[in-house]
C-alpha cells in the first residue's frame, strides 16, 4: 500500500493567503517537529532491531566465546557459520522444516478453499438460516482455541489421527477470520459480473471459481500468507498432538531441544533464527500482502 505522506506543506498554494508571520512560524515548528520525530523514530527502530541483530551476531560467534557473555559476543570479530552448519548436519531441522512446510501449506490451501466457499455462500447467495449461520460463525471468533486443546486431542485420538500431519492441519482449517476477510472482499465485488455469467448459464461453482475467485487474488494472497505464518508459528497444537520426533514442526522441535543445549548459546540463537528464516524470507517477498492481510484481519474482522 502506498503510504502517502500527510505532513502539511506550508508551500501549498493556498497557504500564501495566510498571514506571512504565521506561515513562517508553522514552517519552522513543522520542520523542527519533523527532525525531532525522525530522530526519535530512528532511535526506536534501532532499539527494535537490537534483539534480532544481537541474536544474529551471537549465532555467528563461536560457542565458547558466546558463553562468556554479551560484551564478549559484541567484541568478537570472527564470524563463523559453525552453529548453523551443526543444525544441518544433525539433520533434525530438515524433518522440522518438512513438517512445518507440509502442515502450513496444506492448511493454507484448505483454509483458503473452504473459507472462500463459505464466504461466497454468505456473501452471494440467499438461503434460509443464513443469519443463524453467520451468527454461529461470528461466535467462533470468540472461542479461544487454546482451551479446546483437550477435547480436540481426545477427538483426534478417537479417530486415530494423533501423530499424523492431519492432526495439526484439520483443527486449524476452520479459521473464522478467513471467512470474514473473504466475505468482506466478496461484498465489494459488483454483482453485475456474476449475474451476466448466471444469465449465460454458468452454475454456482462456475461463478465462484471462474468469476469471483480470479477477481480475489489480493485477498487470496493475504489469507494464504497469514494462514501459513499462523500455522508455522503454532506451538500449542503440534506440541500436544505430535509426539513422534520425526513429525515435529519447527517451533515444537526447537522447544524440545532447547533444554539440551545448555551453554551453547550460539547454537541456540542459530536455531531460533533458522526457525524464523522461512518466515523472514516470506516477509521480504510478500511484505505488501502480509501487511494488507494483517490490516484486513484486524480492521475488518
Amino acid at each position, binding site marked *: 500500500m502506498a503510504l502517502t505522506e500527510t505532513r502539511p506543506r506550508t508551500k501549498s498554494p493556498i497557504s500564501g493567503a495566510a498571514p506571512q508571520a504565521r506561515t513562517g512560524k508553522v514552517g519552522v*515548528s513543522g520542520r523542527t517537529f519533523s527532525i525531532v520525530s525522525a530522530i526519535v523514530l530512528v532511535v526506536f527502530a534501532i532499539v527494535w532491531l537490537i534483539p534480532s541483530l544481537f541474536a544474529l551476531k551471537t549465532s555467528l560467534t563461536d560457542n565458547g566465546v558466546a558463553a562468556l557473555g554479551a560484551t564478549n559476543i559484541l567484541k568478537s570479530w570472527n564470524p563463523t557459520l559453525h552453529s548453523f552448519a551443526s543444525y544441518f548436519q544433525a539433520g533434525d531441522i530438515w524433518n522440522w522444516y518438512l513438517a512445518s512446510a507440509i502442515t502450513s501449506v496444506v492448511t493454507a490451501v484448505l483454509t483458503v478453499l473452504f473459507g472462500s466457499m463459505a464466504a461466497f*455462500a454468505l456473501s452471494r*447467495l440467499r438461503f434460509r438460516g443464513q443469519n443463524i449461520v453467520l451468527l*454461529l460463525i461470528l461466535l467462533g471468533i470468540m472461542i479461544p482455541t487454546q482451551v479446546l486443546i483437550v477435547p480436540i486431542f481426545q477427538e483426534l485420538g478417537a479417530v486415530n489421527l494423533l501423530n499424523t500431519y492431519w492432526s495439526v492441519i484439520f483443527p486449524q482449517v476452520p479459521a473464522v477470520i478467513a471467512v470474514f476477510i473473504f466475505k468482506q472482499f466478496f461484498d465489494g465485488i459488483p454483482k453485475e459480473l456474476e449475474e451476466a455469467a*448466471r444469465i449465460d448459464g454458468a452454475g454456482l461453482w462456475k461463478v465462484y471459481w471462474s468469476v469471483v475467485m480470479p477477481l480475489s487474488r489480493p485477498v487470496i494472497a493475504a489469507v494464504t500468507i497469514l494462514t501459513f505464518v499462523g500455522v508455522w508459528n503454532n506451538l500449542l497444537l503440534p506440541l500436544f498432538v505430535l509426539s513422534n520426533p520425526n513429525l515435529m514442526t519447527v517451533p515444537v522441535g526447537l*522447544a524440545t531441544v532447547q533444554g539440551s543445549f545448555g551453554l551453547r548459546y550460539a547454537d541456540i540463537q542459530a536455531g531460533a533464527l533458522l526457525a524464523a528464516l522461512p*518466515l523472514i524470507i516470506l516477509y521480504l517477498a510478500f511484505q505488501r500482502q502480509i501487511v494488507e492481510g494483517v490490516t484486513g484481519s484486524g*480492521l475488518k474482522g
Partner: protein
Amino acid sequence: MTAAPAVSRATRTSPHTLSKKRRSPLSGGDSRGAWLFLAPFGLFYLAFLLGPTIWMIITSFFNTSTVKAGLGSFAGFKNYGEMLGRADFWSAMWHTLQFTIYTTPPLVILAFVFAILTNRVRRGQWFFRLAFFLPYILPSATISLIWVFIFTPGTGLWASAQQAVGLTPGAGILASPNTAMIGIAIATVWWTLGFNFVLYLAGLQEIPRELYEAAAVDGATTWEQIRYITLPLLGRTTTLVVLLQIIASLKIFDQVYLMTSGAPASRRRSPSASSPGPRSPTTGSAQPLRPRCSSSSSSS
C-alpha cells in the same frame, strides 16, 4: 461489525418483501447450492470448533476422565466449585490480568506514536515497517529463545546494559517471580507491537490530507493538528486496537510457557498456561498430554 450490513441485507431481500424482478438472479432457489458451499468449512467448524466447545461445556458438569471413555458421573457445579476454590486458579487469573495491565498501555501507545511518526517520514518507511513489524511474524519459539538469552543472568545483554548504566544486575529478570512478568511483558511488547502499528498506519491512511492542509492554512501547529485531527479521527482504530490487544493479552500462553518453564513454578502462570481443564484426580490430569517440556505443568 461485519455482521451488521450482511444481516440487514439479508432481511431486506427476504423473498416475501421484495418483488421478483428486483431480486438478483443469484438469490432464487440457491438454498441447496449455498449449503453445499458451506458444507466443507461447516464440517471442520463443527468438528474442531463448535463441537469441542459444546463437548467441553457438557463434560464440565461431569466427572469425565481423559483415560476412561464416557462422561462419568454427573457432578453438577462441583468442578467449578473446586476450580474456584483453588489458590493456583486465582493466582493464574491474577497473573493474566497483571500481564494484560502491563502490556496493553505500551502496546497501544507506542504503536500509536510509532505509526504517527512513521507516517510523517518521507523516505524509508519500508525500513521502519520492517523494524517494527518483522518481529510480529516470528514464531514464539524464536522470540523466547532470543529474549531468554538477552535476559541471561550476569552476562546477558540486559545485564550488560544494566551494568553499563551503573545498575547492579540481579539474579536475572526471569529468575524472580516478581520481575519475570516484566521480562515477559517486555518481550511481548517487542514481539507484537507490529500488529497494532500496522493497524494504526492503515487508520492514518484514511484521514484525508485536505484536513491537515486546511488546518495548516488556519495556522494550526503540528501538535494542534495531531491533537485535534489525528487523535479524534483515529478513535475508531484505537477502540479496535485496545479491544484486540486486551483479548490477545488475556490469551497469553506461549511466552510464559517457553520463557519460564520450570523456574519459579506456578507463581506467574496464566490460566491458559496452567494445565488446560481442571486437574483434579477425578477430572483426569492433563499431565499425560504433556509429553515433553513438561516442567511447567507438573508443579502446583
